[in-house]
């Protein structure tokens, strides 16, 4: 479960996140939408405890899987070696690494150094590390960037599978179609404030709704 209550954080007097309150239940996949600079990454970092809120509280159920927006791994390690380190960090057995490699379609790349992978392959490694074991919370910042269409579909399947295994999933994206096709619900923030928290309908309705709430927030 993910719970944010009155989360606020300002940088240099400017509010990046302002009184943000929402929850994501177990097994739920929620898209975190908003224009650039809306405060999505700041909110995710506060949820993870990487950033202290000025006000409010954030709670997540651990273990947590996290894929940062600008994901980087240790170039020197092989894919398997890297996942093994993270498995140990998460208190998991090495068998979890094989599972993750299988789920992410990375078996063929297991012995290759991360530094020799393409951008899309690296993003797959990022998703694999985030979904290692059975995370109870999955926080993903732009998880499908750099992936080709078939990899995007595989990534969506992976996210849904993780949710079906009981994880509360919150992922930020700019792609409304992705949100519409993967998520149960969308949370939209603009100027650091929550402007919409509603179930997903079809993508056209979502686009209209998004433009309306984001535009309204900008006007206000």
């Amino acid at each position: 479960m993910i719970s944010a209550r009155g989360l606020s954080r300002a940088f240099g007097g400017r509010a990046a996140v302002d009184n943000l309150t929402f929850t994501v239940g177990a097994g739920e996949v929620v898209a975190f939408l908003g224009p650039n600079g809306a405060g999505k990454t700041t909110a995710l970092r506060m949820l993870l405890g990487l950033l202290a809120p000025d006000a409010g509280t954030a709670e997540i159920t651990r273990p947590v899987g996290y894929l940062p927006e600008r994901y980087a791994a240790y170039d020197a390690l092989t894919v398997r070696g890297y996942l093994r380190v993270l498995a140990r960090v998460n208190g998991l057995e090495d068998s979890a690494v094989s599972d993750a490699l299988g789920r992410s379609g990375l078996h063929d790349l297991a012995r290759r150094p991360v530094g020799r992978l393409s951008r899309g392959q690296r993003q797959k490694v990022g998703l694999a590390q985030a979904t290692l074991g059975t995370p109870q919370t999955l926080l993903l910042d732009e998880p499908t960037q750099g992936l080709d269409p078939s990899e995007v579909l595989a990534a969506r399947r992976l996210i849904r599978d993780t949710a079906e295994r009981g994880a509360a999933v919150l992922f930020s994206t700019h792609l409304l179609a992705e949100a519409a096709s993967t998520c149960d619900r969308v949370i939209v923030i603009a100027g650091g404030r929550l402007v919409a928290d509603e179930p997903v309908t079809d993508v056209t309705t979502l686009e209209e709704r998004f433009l309306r709430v984001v535009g309204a927030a900008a006007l206000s």
Partner: protein
Amino acid sequence: MTVLRNRGLARRLLVKELVVLWCTPLPYAAGAVMHATLGLLYLSELQARQQAALAPLVPLAGFLLLVVVPVLAARTVAEERRLGTLDVLDAVPVPRGALVVSKWAATALTALVLLLPAVGFAALLSAWAEPDKGPMVTGLVGLALLALALSAVGVAASAACTQQAVAALVAVALGLALWFAHVEPGAVRTQSVLGRLSISERLRSFAGGALDAGDVVFFLGVVVLALVVAVPLVVPRGNRRGRRRAWARAAVAAVAVAVASGTVDAGAAAVDLTEDEALTLSAQTRSVLRAVEGPVRVTAVVGDDRGRSEAAALLGRYRKRHRGLTFRVFGPGESPGEVRRLGIDPVLGGVAFERRGAIERAPDVSEQDLTAALARLVRGRSASLCVASGHGEADIASSTGEGWQSAAEALRANGYRIEAVDLLRAPTIAAACDALVVSGPTSALGPAEAAITTYLAAGGSALVMADPVSTVDLSPILSPYAISLRRGIVFEGDDGRRLGADPITPVVSSFRSGFPVVRRLPPVFFAGAQQVVVGKPGPGASAAVMGETSALSYLEQDPADEGFDEAVDTPGPLGLLAAGDVAAASKRDRARSRVVVTGDADWATNGLIGQAGHARLLVQALDWLTLDESLVSVSPNIARLRSLDLSAARLRYARVLMAGLVPLLFISGGLAVWGLRRRL
């Protein structure tokens, strides 16, 4: 504790760190540059010294580590933070202690691997000569500890900085500050807080062969302190509360570590691993230090940096034995007023001991001089020397070649008050004279002989120097000690035991007596001497020849007719230097009456006192005559020189191996890893 609970995690993180580090060109390049430099510099040192010692390598390798290790460590946290890989670990979150320890351990292990080929130098020295193994072991242990400490400082700097280059610079600057912490212009401050932080001084102790618990604890303390400081620095900056808590814990831990290591450092025992126990104060010095009560302040004025460091190291050993002894070491220009107040020669330097308002001086920073000065301080007053005059003896005020002015100055520098006593005008010797000097009288002593005999019988002591030129027979005053002087002139037939080709100047270079007068005495020579004969001492007396000529020598009774005449001449070996003591008849506080006798008087004159071991003989003789034996028989342990025959071929071999092949191995290793990874 967190680290202990997460050993498995720390181990996996350590492997990750090692793989990450060794997949970069850094360790290979660092190893190649380090060993090329170290090989060339150390082998040049060996070539210049021709001594089988690893000690010169220790500061060189230490200084190179000072640069190399921070470069290795700088990337550990700063690079992860820059790439964002730390965020994934923070999100878990990884225990900070395990994270920091794994990064430190990986850097430290890498530094140790880089250091490992230096053992090759020890192997070469062992193959080509007989080096003292103890200092080689302690030197390498010191370097290993330095590597551990610098790794920790580097990780802390990396955790504090966002950029790798800045972190490296900060770590190098910190290392340099610690390296030179004991140095201030013209002085060495080993006892101040800054002085105790000096890693180069600690390393010098290891290089010399000492395994000092204080030094070990110091380096380990630096490791713990740096890691404790690094932990809050790796807490994400946005996590203010977490950081505050971590800092509070770090502050408590830092204070505990600082107090603990400071306490151990102050009272730590040192193990001397040198074969000759060269770092151990002699039993006599320890005895003197046991007799010292209350605080003693020592001021050493030494001209050069190296001398100051060595002085500080020696005085540090005294301090370990007597915590009330504090010392400072500086150059002559540092505090001219203080140097003047203490009566230290601003040009030659020296040492002053202060205790309860009394000052004693030592001319040099050697264990013999320091302990003698300390012994005089313990005695509580300076010894009074009465120099007999009136019968043609050497004049203590005369600056001519035959005068005794230089000898008098040397004795004054060693804390003696000297007074000429005219025994011709007033043939009595005051009981206040701690010792009498009779230096080659040339006219009959007359009533003075009785005065001397009475003085000695009452418990006095005397340095008696005869001379073959004089006809005065000094044997009667020496009879209680079973010592006599046989007239004639000593001829030395052994080329190796005479000065140049001069047969009437025998050299004594080995001394065969247990008397402390000649212990560790450099060679002395006697330009024209008569024989000193020691008979069988009576009950309660002891006497011995301390130095003699070779079996090829003889006592020539008729110098006009050179050559050994077995009818009249006495064959060698012939005594030239003797000492004796007897139970005193008086109830004075001195228990025994002592004499030191030489068959020549010229050795202590202005012309010769500065040569060979003459000044040392004079001071040691009078110290023994005037002081409690247990306080003066200082025989410092001196490290034996271990020569190394570093021929051109050997030098070439060592250069190719250590400055060529070893760096090449590092480069090859780097290329192999690079090639291997390209194939994956």
